C-alpha cells in the first residue's frame, strides 16, 4: 500500500502543479492577504499621501473613539437586532416552507411551487429593494393603496424608524426562503418512506406523522444550520442594508458594516472605518469559529446515531 502511494507520488509532476497555482497564489496574496495586512492602518493616522510606511502610529485611538461615540451602542444594537430578527423569523421560514412543499403529493404541483419560491433568489437585491420601495411608497405604493381601500391611513414605511427591522427581515425571508429550503428538502427526501408507511398503518394522522417521523428525521440538519446561522449573526450584508437605508431612518438602519462604508468610503476616514471593521471582524471570527467547531462536533456525533 505504501509502496503504491510512493509510486503515485513520483508520478505526478509537482512543478507543473505549482505552475498552475501561480495565478491562484497571486490572486489570494493581492486581494485577500494584502488587505488583511492592511488592517494595520486602524492603528495609524493613515494618510493616503504618506502611505502605510509613513503614517504616524496612534495605537488604539480610533477604537477608543468608536467605543465612546454614540454610534457604538446604536450600531451594535441595530446589528444584533437585525441578526436576531433574522434568526427568529428568517431561520424557521425555510423549514416551514420545506415541510409544506414536502407535504404536497402531486409531483408537478410540487415542482412548480418550488420553482416559484426559488425565483426571488435569482433576482438582485437592487431589484428587490427597488420593487419594495415602490410598493411601500406612501403616494404611489400598492400597499398603501390597499390600506386606503380598507379605510386606513397611508403609512410612510421608509420614513419611520420602527418599521425598518421588520421590512428588512421580511424582504430577506421572501427572497431567500426558497433557496434555504433546498437543504431541508434534501434532508426530508432522505427519510425512509417505510417509516411513513408504518406510521400510517398505526393510524398516525398527518400532524402525528410530522411530529414522530418528519421532524426527528430533519432535526440534525436543523440543529447544524441553526448553529451555523448563530455564528453569522453579526455579519449582515451591507449591500442589502445600504439599498434600503436613508438618512431619516439611520437610527435603526445603521449597522456596523454600513457605518464602515459611510465613514470609510464616503467620508474617506480610512483609519477610523478600518478600526470599526476590525472590531466586527474580530467578533465575527470568534462567533464563526466557535459555531463551526460546535457544528462539526454535532456532525460527527450525529453520524454515530
Amino acid at each position, binding site marked *: 500500500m505504501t509502496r503504491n502511494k510512493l509510486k503515485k507520488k513520483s508520478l*505526478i509532476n509537482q512543478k507543473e502543479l505549482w505552475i498552475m497555482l501561480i495565478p491562484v497564489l497571486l490572486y489570494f496574496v493581492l486581494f485577500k492577504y494584502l488587505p488583511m495586512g492592511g488592517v494595520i492602518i486602524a492603528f495609524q493616522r493613515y494618510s493616503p499621501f504618506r502611505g502605510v510606511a509613513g503614517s504616524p502610529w496612534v495605537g488604539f485611538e480610533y477604537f477608543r473613539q468608536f467605543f465612546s461615540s454614540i454610534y457604538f451602542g446604536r450600531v451594535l444594537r441595530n446589528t444584533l437586532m437585525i441578526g436576531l430578527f433574522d434568526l427568529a423569523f428568517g431561520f424557521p421560514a425555510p423549514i416551514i416552507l420545506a415541510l409544506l412543499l414536502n407535504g404536497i403529493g402531486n409531483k408537478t404541483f410540487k415542482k412548480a411551487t418550488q420553482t416559484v419560491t426559488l425565483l426571488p433568489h435569482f433576482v438582485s437585491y437592487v431589484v428587490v429593494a427597488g420593487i419594495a420601495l415602490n410598493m411601500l411608497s406612501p403616494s404611489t405604493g400598492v400597499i398603501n393603496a390597499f390600506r386606503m381601500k380598507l379605510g386606513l391611513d397611508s403609512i410612510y414605511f421608509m420614513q419611520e424608524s420602527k418599521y425598518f427591522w421588520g421590512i428588512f427581515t421580511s424582504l430577506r425571508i421572501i427572497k431567500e426562503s426558497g433557496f434555504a429550503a433546498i437543504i431541508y428538502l434534501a434532508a426530508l427526501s432522505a427519510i425512509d418512506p417505510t417509516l411513513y408507511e408504518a406510521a400510517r398503518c398505526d393510524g398516525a394522522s398527518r400532524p402525528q406523522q410530522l411530529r414522530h417521523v418528519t421532524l426527528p428525521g430533519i432535526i440534525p440538519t436543523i440543529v447544524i444550520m441553526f448553529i451555523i446561522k448563530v455564528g453569522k449573526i453579526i455579519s449582515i450584508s451591507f449591500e442589502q442594508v445600504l439599498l434600503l437605508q436613508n438618512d431619516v431612518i439611520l437610527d435603526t438602519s445603521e449597522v456596523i458594516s454600513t457605518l464602515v462604508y459611510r465613514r470609510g468610503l464616503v467620508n474617506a476616514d480610512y483609519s477610523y472605518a478600518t478600526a470599526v471593521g476590525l472590531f466586527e471582524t474580530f467578533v465575527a471570527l470568534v462567533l464563526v469559529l466557535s459555531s463551526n467547531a460546535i457544528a462539526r462536533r454535532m456532525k460527527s456525533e450525529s453520524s454515530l446515531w
Partner: protein
Amino acid sequence: MNRPSGKMELFWSTLVAAAVILICAVMLYPFLFTISASISDPDMVIRNQVTFFPKGPLSFEGYKILFKNERIWQGYANTIFYTLFGTGVNLAITVLAAYPMSRRGFNGYKFINIFISLTMFISATGMMIPLFLVVRGLNLLDTRLAILIVFAAFPYYIILLRSFFQQMPEEMFEAARLDGANEFTILLKIVLPLSGAALATIGLYYGINRWNGYFWAMIFLRDETKHPLQVVLRELIVLASMGEEMDASLNRGGSNAEVIKYGAIVLATLPIAVIYPFIQKYFVKGATLGSVKG
C-alpha cells in the same frame, strides 16, 4: 385497524396546498405588479390605481424612454461583459486551484488548503477599506479589470470543485501519465471534458453573482460608461425613490417617472427570468452538493 380517515387526509392535503399557493402568491405578486405597472397608463400608475393587472390603455411609454436611454444600454452591455469574462476568470482560477489540490501526492496540499480556507473566515466588513486601498494602490480604480480580477474566486467553490476532481478514478490519471501526458494535458484533455456538469453548476453561481453585483462596481468605477446595469438601476430606482437623486438624462418628471422605474426593473430581471427554468436544475444540485458535504 385505526387507519387515518380519508376525510382527515384530504383536509390536511388541502390545507398544505392552500398554504403553499398563498406563499407562491406572495412571492409572485411583486413581479406581477411590477410588470402590470410598467405597461399601464402612466396616469393610472401615479394615481395608484394599478393593483393586479394593467389599468387603462396599454402604454409602452416607459419602455420607449428606456430604449432611447443610453445608460441603460451601456449598462446592459457592461453587465454582459462583466458576467461573461468575470465568470470565465472565476472558473479559470477555481479550476487552477482545485486541480493541484485534488491530486494525490501533491506536496503543497496542506499549505494551499490552509492558505485558501483561511480567507473564508475573514469578514467582508473588516476588509472593505483595506481592499479598496489595495485596489487604489494598484492603480486599478476606474478600470474594468478591477471588476474582473478582484473577486476572481470564492474559496468555497474551489473546495467544492476539488472534492469533485478527487472523485475521479486514480487509474485514469496513472494511465495518462504513463502515456506521457503532463499535468496540463491531463487537466485540459481529460479532467475538464469530464467536469461539464460541475463546471456548469459552479459557473452558474459565479454568473448570477456577477449579473447581480452592484456594490463593488459602484465603489471601484467612477466613470459612468463602465457601470454595470445594477449600478444604473440603483440610481434609477432606489435613489430616485428616496428622492436623493434625479437622473436628468432621462428627462423624467411628469407621470412617466413611475412607469420608467417599473420598466427598468422588468428589463433588468427579464434575462434571468427567461433562462431561470433551464438552469434551476443545476442550481438545486449545487445547493445540496455543498451543504451535505460541507
